Each structure stands twice: as C-alpha cells, then as structure tokens.
C-alpha cells in the first residue's frame, strides 16, 4: 500500500474525530439553550452511529471478503 492511501486514511480518521468534536460542542450548547432531552439523545445517537460505522467498521460484518 502506498503513502498516499495511508495519508488519506489518516485524514479520514481526523475528519471523523473533528465531526464528533463539533457535535459534542453543539450538544453542550443545546443543553444550555434548549434543554431538550430528546434532542440531546438524538445528537448522541447520531454520534454513536458515526462511531459504529466509521470507527467500529460494522459493515465488515456482512462483507463477503472477510478482510480487515
């Protein structure tokens, strides 16, 4: 595997982390301004879906190749 593929993969990882950080800040301000439990749990659910999909590779469960 070449360096550009590796750099691209690291960049993708950083973008996901940045998205999660932004969502956490939004979550904090939603708690202060709106005080909506449902909205806060929805943001948490959205963050969890991102982690499960991007970091935990849930889609590999049904990939036919069975590769890493």
């Amino acid at each position, binding site marked *: 595997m070449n360096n550009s593929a*590796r750099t691209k993969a*690291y960049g993708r990882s950083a973008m996901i*982390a940045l998205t999660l*950080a932004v969502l956490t800040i939004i979550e*904090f301000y939603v708690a202060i301004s709106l*005080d909506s439990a449902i909205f806060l*749990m929805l943001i948490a659910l959205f963050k969890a879906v991102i982690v499960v999909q991007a970091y935990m590779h849930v889609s590999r469960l049904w990939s036919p190749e069975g590769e890493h």
Partner: protein
Amino acid sequence: MTTVTAALEGYTQQLRNNRMGLWLFFISEAFLFGGLLVTRFYLWGNTRPELDQTIGLIVTAVLLLSSFSMNMAETAIEHGDRRTFLGGLVVTAVLGLVFLIGVMVFEWGLFPAIYEGHLTPGGDVYGAVVFAMTGMHALHVISGIIFIAIVWNLGRKGGFSSERHWGVESCAIYWHYVDVVWIFFYPALYLIGTVAH
C-alpha cells in the same frame, strides 16, 4: 486448492466468526448499559445532580480523542506503519488513564485533598446512579487499557501484520464501544434535566 489458499480461507472464516462473536458480546453489554440508562431516567426523571460541566466536557473530549488515536493505530497497522501503530496505542492508553483519573478525582471525589466530591454511592439516589453508571463504565475503561497493553506488547514483538491483525481490530472495536457508551452517558449524567442536588 493450494495450502496457502486453504490457510487464507480458514483465516477469513475465522475472522468472520470472531467478528460475529464480538458484536454479540456488545449486544449483551448493551443490555447492561441500557439498563443503567433506564435506571437514570426512571429515578432522576428530568433532574440531575450538580456535576462540574467543565470536567464533564473535558473527560468527554479526552475519550473522543482516544478513539481518534486508536483509529490511527488501527489504520497504521492496516498500512504497515508499525511506528504510528505502537505510538497510537500508547497515546490511547494514556488518554484512557487521564479519563479514569478525571472520573476518580472529580466525579467520585476519591482524593479530597485535590477535589472534594459531594456525592457518595450510598448517599442518595443521585450518588447511587452516578457511581453505578460511571463505575461500570470505568471498569470497561480499565479492561480496555489492559487489552491495549497486551496488544502493544504483542505488536512490539512483531505480532501483527497488515494482512493479519485481528487482535488490533478487536481491541480497537472494544475501545470504540466504550466510547459509544460514554456518548450516551455524557448527556444523561451532565446535560439532561435541571439541577436538583
């Protein structure tokens, strides 16, 4: 079928089974953490104890950052970058320890000389739920750090390759799972409801 092809197919099948087993374990764990979340909403309703918001945000950021470093470590071994892989594991373990210390000092108040906590496990319903939720989560953080240490030690000895690294993948997925649990626990403990204690 050559010996190499047979070995690869055997590994692929084993990998599928391992993944399924790990995710079934996560589902069973979800009942435990889900039960704790339900307990929080049943007992607290739309109230919450007074917990330090800055500390909550900092420990959450630390855990999210540790997920990033763990993903970097996993991506590194996938691409044969052993140095980043080992470094990523160390950073993740250190961030996990920082999270743990943050919880022990500022949520549990285990070191009154540094920070005097006002909640106790047997004090009232707020203390009981906070200690149950953070305690169970902290137990998983500790086991995650031990898991990382084992993987780091094996990796240091050249135990994983870009083709075969189930140990790294399972360790990373486990760590991210611990993060996912905190993603739900953070608003439940710190953000939802009005301060009642």
